[in-house]
């Protein structure tokens, strides 16, 4: 990538250009990603769905700079992935809160690491940074739990805090790897609502990896259906549903049809193998 950025790239939050990733050696090699091309506009909410092994988590890890593609290019906000300038927020299925820090300190962790915040961390951690963390925690209903430790909270509450931490440094993209996967149905749905209102309010660019088709249909503006062995994009669906969406709405014909369509797509490919 040259450092020169054409103007047309300015609004692209994510660009994957012919990305390939193979795990293992010749004999047992697994083609995790095969020629992935994907552009995501800034402020869009995109879900990656597909069965296990379709490489959707690998895409996330590449964008987070945790994996390097074997070929092809990945850029975040016009900057090559892996450079410190590419600001990424990350939330996994297992909440990765540090158990020795309070919820508030956990949420502020990215400000301690990411430039330019880290230079002001010692000065601002009791002032503006703290206000920012409290603002986020209050927006997800965790205001009074800020001084608790993560292990004193329920799974759903920890995952809410996890989202706050992923957002606090105002990343160019928010990468969510099945963040609600380990929660029970009711907690999960209440977190969908939280996630949706956070997105409507702040409009971050989100890439969500999920197994849950209803979740994708509820949250995303655009759904990428992927297929495994080799990991490839099968279909790119624009979600026609109005926002704000409701949980009852996921049982409406339009939403159910969308899920059924995705299901059929995945089944057709699974059957072929």
């Amino acid at each position, binding site marked *: 990538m040259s450092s020169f950025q054409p103007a047309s790239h300015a609004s692209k939050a994510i660009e994957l250009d012919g990305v390939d990733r193979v795990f293992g050696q010749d004999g047992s090699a697994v083609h995790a990603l095969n020629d992935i091309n994907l552009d995501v506009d800034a402020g869009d909410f995109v879900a990656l769905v597909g069965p296990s092994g379709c490489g959707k988590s690998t895409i996330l890890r590449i964008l*987070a*700079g*945790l994996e390097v593609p074997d070929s092809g290019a990945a850029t975040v906000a016009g900057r090559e992935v892996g450079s*410190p300038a*590419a600001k*990424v927020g*990350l939330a*996994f299925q*297992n909440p*990765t809160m*540090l*158990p*020795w820090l309070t919820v508030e300190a956990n949420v502020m*962790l*990215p400000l*301690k*690491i*990411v*430039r330019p915040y880290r230079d002001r961390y010692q000065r601002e951690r009791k002032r503006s940074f703290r206000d920012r963390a409290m603002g986020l925690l209050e927006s997800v209903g965790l205001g009074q739990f800020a001084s608790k*430790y993560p*292990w*004193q909270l329920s799974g759903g509450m920890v995952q809410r805090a996890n989202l706050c931490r992923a957002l606090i*440094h105002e990343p160019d993209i928010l*990468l969510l790897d099945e963040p609600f996967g380990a929660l029970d149905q009711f907690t999960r749905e209440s977190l969908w609502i939280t996630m949706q209102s956070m997105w409507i309010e702040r409009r971050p660019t989100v890439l969500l990896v999920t197994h849950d088709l209803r979740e994708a249909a509820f949250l995303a503006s655009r759904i990428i259906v992927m297929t495994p062995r080799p990991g490839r994009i099968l279909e790119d669906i624009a979600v026609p549903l109005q926002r704000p969406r409701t949980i009852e709405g996921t049982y409406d014909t339009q939403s159910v049809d969308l899920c059924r369509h995705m299901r059929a797509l995945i089944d057709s490919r699974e059957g072929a193998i």
Partner: protein
Amino acid sequence: MKLSDFTMRIYSIAIIVSVFLFWEFVCRAFDVSQFILPPPSSIIHTLYTRFGALQPHLVQTLYTTVIGFTLSVVIGTLIGGLVGTSRLAYEAIYPILVGISSIPKVALIPIFVVWMGAGTGPAIATAFAISVFPVVVNVATGLATTEPELEDVLKALGASKADIFWNVGLPRTMPYLFAAMKVAITVAFIGSITSETIAANRGIGNAMLVASSNFNMPLVFAALLMISITGVLFYTLFSIVERRFTRWATRGRDPLA
């Protein structure tokens, strides 16, 4: 059966006291000679009357133990940090460490005496040699078992290796370090005292040696009791510090309360 904290404490004190009462009873009932096994009453009496004579020895032993232990914690943490984070260090240093730790430390004391002369030097060196291994092993284990997801979150934020060490590796390792310190302080005591019984003219070990060559068994046992009490006090001190700093590791539940 779930006992309340208070009942639990009463029971445990009762059990400890009855062990000593049983000991006293056996000595009196079978008329055991003071020379074979003095009763607790006689040991405590001796400890009380001869405290002034034992005290400088205790101070000397504490001095060598604490210095040896401190060296263990500092050097052991550094080596453990290296072994736990670098594969090469793990492959190269671990076999050497296991080899060294398999040597009975008593066998090293004559060497230390040749190097440093009798007295304080070998006592510190022995305390260090015996207590460094648990520190290295625990710190290395703590670092090596850090959850990769925790590191991934920081790496995705562009954290350097040093950032990850200070924010994840080190705090994650604290419970392991404190567990090691509790073991290390008690074995450091053993190291110092062993060295004093072989090559010193001061220290509890030396006092015991002199007392037993004078056939003053109550004094030997008084010195032993003194060591035990000091050991328990140190262990308790580190447990309290540990609880203060690593409450998260037990999720607030207190196994020692």
